[in-house]
């Protein structure tokens, strides 16, 4: 009879639809979490390039008047173009013209766009003209790990000295200071890669990888290095850096090192994002 089978079937149908809904929700959640994992663990897609100095802060100046701020902006643009065109990466420059940007703002940009790496490009200068070569820095432990800073932060506040950017709270300052600490090992790996590629560039010598308390690396919440591509105080290197073809070679070397780091990144997390 209809009255016997009808309600039974509709109950089953109702049960099936409930099961279907539960399954759909499960599938959606699994897919979302997989996508989330994919986006966060596998994607190497954002690079922030920081051309050092800018505007009134000219940086190093060579004997012929060649300025660091202009040299590094040109190299940064060339590198950015390579990364975009050849790897399809999302590239941000902390400045794309001759203007001054606060150093903390440069790192904040990298944090905001969730960059996979932060590369600051500089040119060096020294009192002795004989000093030459390229070197790559990552943040020193001391900058993130000394009691002096904590003690002095309190003393400075007690004395009414304000930080250069008007630091509002010690805690916030300390959190900023610590952003890079969890990435130091990866930063050192990236620094090694950048330096080894710079070494293969004809015309410059290896000054190695080093650690220093550089303010522009401090707040970066991702692997971050600063490369000094050469000495403008050295006449030979100033001549090289004045040449657009050489600056393109430098950009090529930096491109290769970032590509190597990207491949390592992909292999570490199980072969994602291979292009």
């Amino acid at each position, binding site marked *: 009879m209809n009255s016997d089978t009808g309600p039974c079937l509709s109950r089953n149908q109702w049960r099936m639809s409930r099961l279907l809904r539960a399954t759909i929700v499960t599938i959606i959640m699994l897919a979302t979490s997989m996508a989330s994992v994919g986006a966060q663990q596998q994607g190497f897609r954002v690079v922030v390039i920081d051309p050092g100095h800018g505007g009134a802060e000219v940086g190093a100046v060579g004997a012929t008047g060649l300025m660091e701020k202009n040299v590094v902006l040109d190299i940064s643009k060339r590198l950015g173009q390579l990364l975009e065109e050849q790897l399809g990466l999302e590239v941000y420059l902390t400045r794309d013209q001759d203007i001054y940007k606060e150093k903390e703002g440069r790192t904040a940009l990298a944090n905001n766009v969730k960059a996979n790496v932060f590369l600051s490009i500089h040119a060096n200068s020294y009192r002795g003209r004989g000093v030459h070569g390229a070197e790559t820095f990552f943040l020193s432990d001391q900058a993130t790990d000394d009691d002096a800073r904590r003690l002095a932060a309190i003393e400075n506040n007690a004395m009414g000295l304000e930080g250069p950017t008007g630091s509002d709270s010690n805690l916030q300052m300390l959190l900023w200071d610590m952003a890079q600490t969890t990435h130091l090992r990866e930063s050192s790996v990236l620094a090694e890669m950048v330096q080894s590629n710079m070494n293969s560039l004809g015309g410059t010598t290896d000054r190695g990888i080093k650690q220093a308390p550089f*303010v522009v690396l401090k707040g970066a919440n991702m692997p971050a290095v600063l490369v000094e591509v050469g000495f403008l105080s050295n006449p030979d290197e100033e001549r090289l850096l004045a040449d657009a073809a050489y600056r393109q070679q430098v950009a090529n070397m930096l491109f290769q090192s970032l590509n190597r780091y990207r491949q390592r990144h992909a292999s570490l997390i199980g072969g994602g994002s291979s292009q």
Partner: protein
Amino acid sequence: MSRNDANFPWRVVTISAMLLSVLVLIGWVFFFSPGSNNPGVSATNDDATEMAPVPPATAATSVPTVQPTVGDPSSLESLARPTTFDLTDAEIVDGLSIARAEAGTMDLRLFLIVSGLERLIPVLHTVAAPPTIDLQVRSAVDELISWSGDETISPVPPESRVREIWVAQSGVAYIDFYQSFFDFSGGGSLNELHTVYSIVATLTESFPEIFAVQFLVEGEQIETLAGHVDLSHPLQPSADWVLIEQEGGTDQQPQDPGGIDG
């Protein structure tokens, strides 16, 4: 048993599916929730899951759990003391500068550039000792500024002029320069590193009661001297840039600061 069978355990299957959904949801929220967008100070660390694990020594040291009360003397007392010198007895600290004043002279270690060497080299230099620690430190900085040697060069610009110097009980020396220090430092990170670490090492290695140096210009804190080295907090000497013996105490482990939870 077929699916049309009235005995098919729909309830069990449905509950299992719902339970699985909830578990996945919980897992997703706990492990993959997006981090804060707060620039710079994002305490949640998305990339921590992305990269190889970091040694706990760099990740966990000096994590502040409590913000010390500014200006509260008890919070100053509770902070970790420098391990290079015991500052608990102010008389000992004063005693060092008094002893130097009574001796009439003091031995300085000036950290200078020697051609061909990457790191700054200490040069022993004996000068007359003024009566107080503040004046003694000022004398050391002035020696660096005015230094002229045959084989050594001072990395501190000769145009630099000291406005004021004082040494806090904590062992931090405050060096306040006139603007010329800033203007004449020139560009380049190597120049900047040498200028800064020459002053820091000269003071910490010449005066055992000093363990760090805070730079100021015209009474204000500065972010950097030439766009690189972070000068917003006191600096301790670095063996990367100056030739110093790394004693056990130089590589400081943060003491457990009293009054900080957890």
